């Protein structure tokens, strides 16, 4: 039994701001008001502090406005995989393989047997829900998907499979579209998809190709290295790198 998730339920509250509460609304509006006020004040001054305030105010207002807009993302990526179409198609169609190219999102199901109401979650919060796993399916040609009407985030996409020229295997092209309303859901989606969603999609497809061709995904995570020094440690903090192979104490 799946609870309908809307703004204001515990799941989204945990994301930081419940969508319609007064506190949340205040939290969205305050930076906008502050930004506009700062900018207005700065225009009346004609000195450097005024200019600095203008820049700060303008930036605050921009950030506030950005959060008020819906989040939209459209991505098209492709990869050629040195395997026959049937094999590539079968691999992609099997939800057990989806973690290979969907690192950042966990796929979870509810209901038993025939997949109904499956969804994608990020860090425990459901972001996308489908009524069926796939739409517009043509075996060895195409897999499409469309989110359910009550899905928190709207998404649609299609993967097309074509024989590559010569003996090169399969050309796989994927087009994805995401749209999330403003506020915490859009923000959560952005966090889940990472700083550069197009890169995420490209890397996902690359990982898929490596699994199908080489049976594994190339990695150096966990390999030894010497002391990273000051810059290295700084970068580690900046990139929030959690996996560290520390040099042994001499």
């Amino acid at each position: 039994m799946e609870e309908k998730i809307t703004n204001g339920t515990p799941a989204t509250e945990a994301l930081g701001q419940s969508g319609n509460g007064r506190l949340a609304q205040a939290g969205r509006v305050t930076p906008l008001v502050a930004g506009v006020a700062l900018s207005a004040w700065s225009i009346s001054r004609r000195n450097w502090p005024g200019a600095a305030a203008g820049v700060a105010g303008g930036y605050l207002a921009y950030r506030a406005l950005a959060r008020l807009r819906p989040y939209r993302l459209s991505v098209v990526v492709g990869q050629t995989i040195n395997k026959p179409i049937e094999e590539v198609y079968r691999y992609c169609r099997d939800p057990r393989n989806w973690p290979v190219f969907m690192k950042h999102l966990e796929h979870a199901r509810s209901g038993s047997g025939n997949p109904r109401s499956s969804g994608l979650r990020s860090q425990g919060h459901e972001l996308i829900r489908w009524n069926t796993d796939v739409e517009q399916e043509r075996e060895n040609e195409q897999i499409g998907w469309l989110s359910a009407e009550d899905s928190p985030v709207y998404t649609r996409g299609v993967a097309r499979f074509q024989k590559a020229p010569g003996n090169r295997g399969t050309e796989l092209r994927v087009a994805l579209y995401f749209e999330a309303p403003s506020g915490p859901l859009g923000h959560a989606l952005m966090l889940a998809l990472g700083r550069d969603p197009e890169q995420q999609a490209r890397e996902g497809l690359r990982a898929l190709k490596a699994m199908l061709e080489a049976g594994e995904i190339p990695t150096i995570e966990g390999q030894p290295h010497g002391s990273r020094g000051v810059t290295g440690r700084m970068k580690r903090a900046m990139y929030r790198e959690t996996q560290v192979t520390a040099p042994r104490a001499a």
Partner: protein
Amino acid sequence: MKALCWQGKEKLTVENVDDPRILNPRDAIVKITRSAICGSDLHLYDGYIPTMEPGDILGHEFMGEVVEVGPGVSDLKVGDRVVVPFTIACGNCYFCEQQLWSLCDNSNPNAWLPEKLYGYSPSGLFGYSHMMGGYAGGQAQYARVPYADVGPIKVPEQLSDEQVLFLSDIFPTGYMAAENGDIKQGDVVAVWGCGPVGQFAIRSAYMLGAERVIAIDLVPERLDMADRGHAQIVDYGKTDDIVEVLKQMTAGRGPDVCIDAVGLEAHGHGLPGLYDVAKQRLKLSFDRPTVLRECIQACRKGGTVSIPGVYGGFLDKIPFGAAFNKGLKFRMGQTHMMRYMRPLLERIERSEIDPSFVITHRITLDDVPDMYRIFRDKQEGCIKCVIDPWREGQMQLAA
């Protein structure tokens, strides 16, 4: 384990680091018995290669004994004695199937990096910056070898480590440079750079049918070694115009094949040389293509320029008009190792060549930081040094 770590331009340290472990099913762990320093490692030492991080372990020419295999490796077992190629290849992508092993699609975990610079990513390499995969290298006591069922080759008991170590890089590289020249019986081949790769290119050129090989370098002991390989030597330091010298040596034709075994840190002369150095210092270019320019000018019409020398970025002032109007052919790239290792091992087994002739120094890991400088500055007659990573202390750095 002990490992040689890059810490910055001209800064190397020998540190105590974790032992490598199996990370993927097709990995193997090799206990390294012998390793070497490559001329291209000097580009890392001099800071010309971007995307290096302090703590990265260097080294890509190594061999040893298999001590652990992952569940996906079937044709190697613990105890096998292997030489490991410096390129990493999966064996199943389009490029591997076409024998273009150094262009493997599936061995660079950071493929997006060179994609930004080059359009597409070549294969991963051991110990050669994060752009090329960031793999920990072989100037250490152990190494993790990915796709171990594709790369490493087993070597017979009766050949010593020193006889087979150079199958890991420089012998196949020199050989591919000569093969890329499309040498026909009776051809004249000019080789710029008598470092180890050039030395193997000279001998390979003769193996492939060259009638005369002209070897060009600045350093006396390298010219001597080339002379012992039956090359006609030209001292680059004593000539102002190498193109004219080559024209005279070939009675007005120019060499049929020109091999650039020098790459991006070429020594130039005069104003053009200064120009290249200045641009590099100002970070306006990665590479100093003096030798490439000379190869293009000197090559006969319709000839081939073969480039094993490493280049990284954008080149400047290349006489492309000369190249076009003379109808030159260019062949280049990182060595397609797996194509050559077995055939060249067979040549060594048949005693056609003993690659250990290039060795001038035998050292320990602790010697290595100093050795990079000696190697780069061509002091002490250094041409090639071999590292025993298990030997303790510091040896006096003489053969």
